[in-house]
């Protein structure tokens, strides 16, 4: 059906990274956002595509809620979330009239919108497109991989928390990646420990060891652990300027290290 494989709107996108889990609530959207900001901090032009149609979290994280999506001759213009227009975002969140409106769609309708998000958004020139996904291994995941595949080799970043219950689900996601031919760049362990602000004791609230175990099981690199930082969560929620707030967070060194490892492993980025 796609007789023409002309890149169209994805022609200027150098690299595409899918952020997956299998488990809900491990921080895919948070890490997608933080990773995009870290890559931006390293001087890269980044786009974020949010294909979580039922729970589109990213607009709020980047204080872009309620922004209008405009049309141009190449399709939808993604929403720029910074003044320099170096971070762009597309999400179903922008298309909802009321933010509390539930997107109660079955698979085929979700697939149709995802295809549109891939082919009809005028991304322009990007070093990296980060694709945030919902939990699971179902319609959205198959649709986005099928839609993106003709344009670029796809790479996946897999997120887990330290507990075995997470690892149990995320293992299945890794099988999905293998079956669908998605190269896994590595595993990131989120919510890795909480440092009490009163006494500096570090507690493993969500157990420990899951990330490394998962990477070992799957034979992929373990990219690092990101600790819990409630202040960063607060900033994400209260609409603070994350480009300023993120570098102050105890999570920042881990995120920067992960971003650098990702950049190092991607073939020749734009200088």
């Amino acid at each position: 059906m796609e007789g023409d494989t002309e890149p169209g709107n994805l022609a200027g996108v150098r690299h595409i990274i899918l952020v997956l889990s299998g488990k809900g609530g491990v921080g895919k959207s948070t890490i997608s956002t933080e990773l995009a900001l870290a890559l931006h901090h390293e001087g890269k032009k980044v786009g974020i595509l949010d294909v979580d149609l039922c729970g589109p979290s990213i607009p709020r994280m980047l204080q872009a809620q309620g922004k209008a999506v405009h049309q141009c001759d190449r399709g939808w213009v993604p929403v720029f979330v910074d003044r320099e227009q170096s971070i762009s975002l597309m999400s179903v969140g922008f298309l909802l009239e009321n933010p509390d409106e539930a997107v109660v769609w079955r698979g085929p309708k979700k697939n149709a919108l995802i295809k549109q998000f891939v082919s009809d958004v005028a991304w322009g020139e990007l070093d990296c497109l980060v694709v945030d996904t919902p939990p699971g291994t179902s319609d959205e995941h198959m649709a986005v991989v099928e839609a993106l595949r003709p344009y670029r080799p796809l790479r996946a970043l897999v997120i887990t928390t330290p507990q075995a219950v997470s690892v149990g689900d995320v293992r299945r996601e890794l099988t999905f990646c293998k079956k669908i031919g998605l190269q896994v760049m590595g595993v990131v362990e989120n919510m890795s420990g909480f440092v009490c602000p009163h006494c500096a004791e570090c507690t493993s609230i969500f157990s420990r060891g899951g990330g490394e175990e998962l990477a070992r099981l799957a034979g992929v690199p373990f990219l690092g652990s990101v600790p819990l930082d409630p202040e960063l969560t607060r900033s994400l929620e209260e609409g603070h300027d994350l480009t300023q707030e993120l570098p102050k967070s105890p999570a920042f060194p881990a995120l920067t290290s992960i971003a650098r490892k990702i950049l190092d492993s991607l073939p020749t980025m734009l200088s």
Partner: protein
Amino acid sequence: MEEVPRDCPGADSAQAGLGASCQGCPNQRLCASGAGAAPDPAIEEIKEKMKTVKHKILVLSGKGGVGKSTFSAHLAYGLAEDENTQVALLDIDICGPSIPKIMGLEGEQVHQSGSGWSPVYVEDNLGVMSVGFLLSSPDDAVIWRGPKKNGMIKQFLRDVDWGDVDYLLVDTPPGTSDEHLSVVQYLAAAHIDGAVIITTPQEISLQDVRKEINFCHKVKLPIIGVVENMSGFVCPKCKKESQIFPPTSGGAEAMCQDLKIPLLGKVPLDPHIGKSCDKGQSFFVEAPDSPATLGYRSIIQKIQEFCRLHQSKEETSSVPKAC
């Protein structure tokens, strides 16, 4: 049903197969014949099956990772502490079936009998069913599109031999999609008591939970109430409290007041919970005096009370049930 037109009116709508956007769709003839609009016979079959089930409760969120499965499992444990109460726990998270692990049932397989599939029993009065029991390896991925997931849910409701059950608890995946629509649709004739909605305190969760509440209203599913999970953390060393997931917009309390929905309770973050779930043990046994355990128990009591009130209303009312 792979290729569906962008403006598909829906297989069960009056315009099915007849709209302009239906031209060229591979399902056009099927829809135009009215087949999509005919009610699924399974709905009646499930209604029959559910006659032996007194109360049906859905555990929903909208947001992932807020503790639906943890809550469902502990609600089941809590209700089953009374050995005269028969409890059934159905896990319809097809892609991420966590319940077997949390209940210590990993590796168990499902058996067929003359009367259908047998649930896996944790205790004599606590039976569990999950797609996890149908997978041969912990690495097996269930990569199914919506229609196939719906088929599985139908089978779970129609073909599992639950026997006489006081409470059927249904653990769901995050979202408002196929699984949620299907379970509500298939149980439509059997009548669901209500939904318990789980959230964490921060706005990013509440945002999704409001959508879930919206979904419940749309499909006329009564809401028993909201549980705020991971509500505060007490440092084991200095005993001071921190908010790991800050309630930036007032938490579940503010949302419930706003939407006039009961807040069933708040459960604090206790690192023992995660560890118990990982080990497949009941947290109530591991940490019976923890504030989290006390939080859970109070919530379970309220749920039981709701079901009792609901049952007596049903028994005294002669008005047909509205689904």
